[in-house]
């Protein structure tokens, strides 16, 4: 009996085991993430340490020429700009639409929204990116060509394809975010005589803003990393995208197009890994920016409370 007193209870043992389990799961995820980051970092840095490419040149120049081994001319500036531009455009097109749909699903008509609108948008998630690429090539490009002249290939075509691809991601997460606002807030606002629109703007959107931002960041991440679809419609040319119809290339499309043709450990291959590294750094910056905005809005909220 004395022994039992000193032993911890079953509950406590369970509790310890549970804590161990979840933290080891988190560790697995973190170790994996670190392994991947280390892998990309070590491969991506070789361009500068082994092949002695000037880092500043790599960031600011816009040519991609690995043929001449004596005087390689490598620069990722145009690729970075194109990646940022297409992603930004896509998010600008999609975010308002996704928000409207999410509001419809949560506020206007949860019945039709939940049964038809949401499942329909989520269907888009399962369609492989190659399919988006080919539909873009066979349907969208001819339309753009007729509308604006030129070849149709370019930044705008890529942005529109991406916009459709990230619509379900942003919509689903926005629905989650809006659902997270306690029902009582809405009821309270209605009882004060607010109209539906007022409730949407002043209660729902305001309170869920930080989580809506997360939804948009997810969309940005998806658009940023997409390659196969973009590659088909952007016109794969390494140059600064001066207009919406200029053919260009993004970090990921360049990476995907060239990777299979390079020899491990050579400059051509290392430079592509450097692009992957740049992509990571850029998404890190996006992430930090978003966090900053989030923290600001949160601190403002706590003051107003």
């Amino acid at each position, binding site marked *: 009996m004395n022994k039992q007193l000193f032993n911890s209870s079953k509950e406590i043992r369970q509790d310890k085991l549970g804590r161990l389990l979840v933290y080891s799961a988190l560790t697995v995820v973190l170790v994996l993430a670190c392994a991947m980051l280390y892998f990309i970092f070590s491969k991506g840095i070789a361009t500068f340490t082994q092949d002695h490419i000037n880092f500043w040149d790599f960031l600011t120049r816009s040519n*991609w020429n*690995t*043929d001449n*081994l004596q005087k390689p001319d490598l620069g990722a500036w145009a690729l970075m700009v194109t990646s940022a531009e297409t992603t930004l455009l896509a998010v600008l097109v999609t975010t308002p639409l996704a928000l409207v749909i999410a509001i419809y699903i949560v506020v206007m008509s949860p019945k039709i929204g939940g049964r038809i609108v949401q499942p329909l948008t989520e269907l888009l998630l399962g369609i492989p990116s190659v399919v988006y690429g*080919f539909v873009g*090539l*066979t349907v969208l*490009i*001819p339309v753009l*060509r007729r509308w604006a002249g030129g*070849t*149709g*290939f370019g930044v705008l075509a890529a942005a529109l394809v991406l916009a459709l691809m990230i619509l379900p991601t942003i919509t689903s997460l926005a629905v989650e975010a809006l659902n997270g606002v306690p029902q009582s807030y809405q009821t309270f606002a209605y009882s004060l005589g607010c109209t539906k629109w007022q409730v949407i703007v002043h209660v729902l959107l305001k309170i869920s803003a930080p989580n809506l931002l997360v939804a948009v960041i997810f969309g940005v991440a998806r658009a940023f990393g997409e390659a196969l679809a973009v*590659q*088909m419609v952007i*016109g*794969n*040319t*390494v*140059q600064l995208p001066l207009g919406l119809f200029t*053919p260009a*290339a993004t970090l990921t499309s360049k990476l*995907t*197009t*060239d*990777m*299979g*043709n*390079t*020899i*491990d*450990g*050579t400059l*051509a*291959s290392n430079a592509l890994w450097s692009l992957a590294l740049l992509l990571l750094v850029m998404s890190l910056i996006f992430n930090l920016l978003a966090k900053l905005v989030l923290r600001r809005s949160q601190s403002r909220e706590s003051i107003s409370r």
Partner: protein
Amino acid sequence: MMGKRSAFLTGLTVIAAAVTLTACGGQSGSKTATSGKALSGKVTAVGSTALQPLVEQAAKDFQAKNPNVTVNVQGGGSGTGLSQVAQGAVDIGNSDIFAESKPGVATDKITEHKVAVIGFAPVVNPDTKVKKLTMVQLQNIFAGKVTNWKQVGGKNEKIVLVNRATGSGTRATFDDNVMKGKKSVKSQEQDSSGAVQKIVGSTPGAISYLAFSYLTKNLQAVAIDGVTPTTANVLNNKWKIWSYEHMYTQKKANKVATAFIKFMNSDHVQGELVKKLGYISIKDMQVVKDAKGNVTNK
């Protein structure tokens, strides 16, 4: 409640099993069992996507003959094939180009085997009304000196260049046999034949180049200097734009890999499969081309 727990346990067991199996998998690598007469073992071939359909089909027939053999054929690109076979990571590396022409490949560690020939033809969108060009005109188009189809006898329409990915085998063949050291102008680049086929077919004024087997009705293949892109013209080198398909093995290739390469050069593959899938047989060629592009009679 019991149900949930048992489901959880089942899940755990499955994962544990997967992990154990993974551990066992390490031993079943690409080693070959040598004893006995029947050939057995596993061969992995990766690389060129252009050669893949042929090797896949041949592997199927080879396995039908040798039931204890597994031949695993994958793509990944010529660069991947050459890197991995030179590093000893795979048994066979498929490539569209000579290993010598790719800097960075340890050529002393691998042996070359030519298994087929592919002919390439310039293709244009039919609306350009261009059916023939001279070699110089073709050069000038890809060098960016000619920018309208009117300048080479076609319709008044802007030329849309679709080049192949830098470093790809198709690009190398085109650069070696057409551009001959001249620099291509900056333009759209595509990696896959399917994409090029669709883009040229659907874009007015577009020009690119494709392997003979990808020529379809909605594309116009272009004759150069009066020579039409046909297999017969490739055999005697009248048509200049062609290249070998190579399969590289390690210097000390294992038994199964050696047997499979031998099978690739058998009459069954060279006589039937190669033609059926749109390649040109290595045995029919009347000329030989070396890594530097010099052509001699056989």
